[in-house]
């Protein structure tokens, strides 16, 4: 299934056109914003202006102000992700293999999953303080359910035909686990991993926003309390770049591990 040279060349030029187009679009938005703010069409008090934002953000990085905050948010998100994923996989496997357990806990899981997590954030802060732990708990409460449901579905929705195929060739329960059930669950888990990263950052930021002494969410919250829209928007910019980088690297990982999948036509 190799594409011909001509097709590849055309695809490359399509990609290039798209990249240039996107860069121009971004430049146009930034230019309009700057010009509008300078001409007084939009009020920079509320939306700042790109040159000032650039100055602020550059200052944060140059002066070293931003690093502890990024580090705090990363720590919360990564720890929460790790705990949430591990917990979700383990509980998902337990429930898939022991239907009684699943039946017993099902209503509880549904109720917890339906509870808006933002409503739990104050509780986490009361219980665990304004430090790392409450943010991690917040992230876990979001990530756990996504991974749990993926693992459970991945293990339960395996094609019976595949199971029979491996059983008939002499596969034991262990072989089924290794060659059929786990790969199936992994594809589901990978599919939801990107959503998890997004939620992990959201969880950390919400936690910081509601009560913390550091983190990107804290910067935004602090800027807001000072009525400093320049600081709020600068914080958001840092956050956007941060999330985009994370998401991009995950997309790359996902492509590496789903190479066996059919690409949509």
């Amino acid at each position: 299934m190799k594409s011909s040279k001509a097709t590849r060349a055309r695809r490359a030029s399509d990609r290039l056109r798209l990249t240039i187009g996107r860069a121009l679009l971004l430049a146009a938005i930034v230019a309009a914003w700057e010009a509008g703010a300078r001409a007084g069409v939009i009020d920079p008090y509320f939306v700042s202006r790109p040159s000032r934002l650039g100055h602020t953000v550059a200052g944060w990085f140059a002066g070293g102000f931003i690093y502890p905050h990024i580090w705090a948010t990363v720590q919360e998100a990564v720890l929460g992700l790790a705990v949430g994923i591990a917990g979700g996989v383990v509980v998902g496997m337990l429930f898939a293999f022991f239907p009684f357990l699943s039946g017993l806990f099902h209503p509880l899981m549904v109720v917890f999953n339906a509870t808006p997590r933002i409503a739990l954030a104050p509780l986490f802060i009361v219980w665990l303080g304004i430090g790392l732990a409450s943010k991690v708990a917040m992230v876990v409460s979001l990530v756990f359910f996504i991974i749990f449901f993926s693992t459970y579905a991945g293990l339960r929705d395996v094609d019976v035909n595949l199971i029979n195929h491996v059983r008939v060739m002499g596969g034991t329960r262990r072989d089924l686990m290794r060659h059929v059930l786990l790969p199936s669950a992994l594809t589901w888990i990978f599919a939801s991993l990107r959503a998890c990263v997004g939620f992990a950052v959201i969880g950390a930021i919400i936690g910081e926003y509601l009560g913390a002494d550091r983190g990107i969410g804290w910067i935004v919250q602090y800027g807001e309390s000072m009525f400093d829209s320049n600081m709020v928007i600068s914080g958001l910019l840092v956050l956007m770049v941060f999330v985009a980088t994370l998401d991009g690297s995950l997309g790359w990982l996902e492509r590496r591990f789903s190479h066996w999948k059919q690409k949509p036509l």
Partner: protein
Amino acid sequence: MLSSRPLLITLERVTRTFETPAGEFTAVRDVSFRVSAGRFVSLVGPSGCGKTTLLGMIAGLVPVSEGRIVLGDRPVTGGVPPDIGYLFQRDALLPWKTALQNVALPLAIRGRPGAETRARATEWLRRVGLAGFEAYYPHQLSGGMRKRVSLATTLIYGPPVLLMDEPFSALDVQTRNLMENELLELWAETRNTVLFITHDLEEAIALSDEVIVLTAGPGRVKASYPIPLPRPRNVVEIRFREEFTRLYEQIWKDLRDEVQQSYARATRL
């Protein structure tokens, strides 16, 4: 070759009933027949006559409600009997494994060393005409190629009994005839006991030593016909022989009533 001697398949008054919301449903009733060791036998019958259920019971995937199934001298009870091959109607290749990894899986499961496993899987892919496709994933292969990989996956561990459930029904006619000829060639070497399910009478006669006709559900054995056509056969050309036509007419008379009955039942719903 890992291949052990072929086995005799014996079914004694085998019945399978299912619990359904509408009550008890009998898929097959009192089915008895034998497949002698090393023979190629086809089961034909209208759709819904319990053919797949029968194969499932022989493979130990579906429990037997009443009666007895014996492979060689070992009754099939609780679980999959060792060294049985099953070619499913639908693709059963693992989508996350390459063609080579799929074919190698039965040997890997048996704990064979990696180098031997790879060498033999490569050899089997070559034998089914897929040399060079080792690194392809199932979705990158055509339906016929996937069937070939399935066939290699089933034959690599030399199962003395080979169960085939309409394996070629989803293929186009040309591919199908090619695969039938290839199957006969491979079988001429392995000579395992084959039980082949199809609803296509021509296919059954062209391939088999014996054709067993099942009734419309619940399936029972209606009649059994030896097919004394000479081998080696070409499944396309053998259809032009007078003997073939005569056998076809004879068996079709039996099958026709069952097909009509099955059709009438299905359309009345």
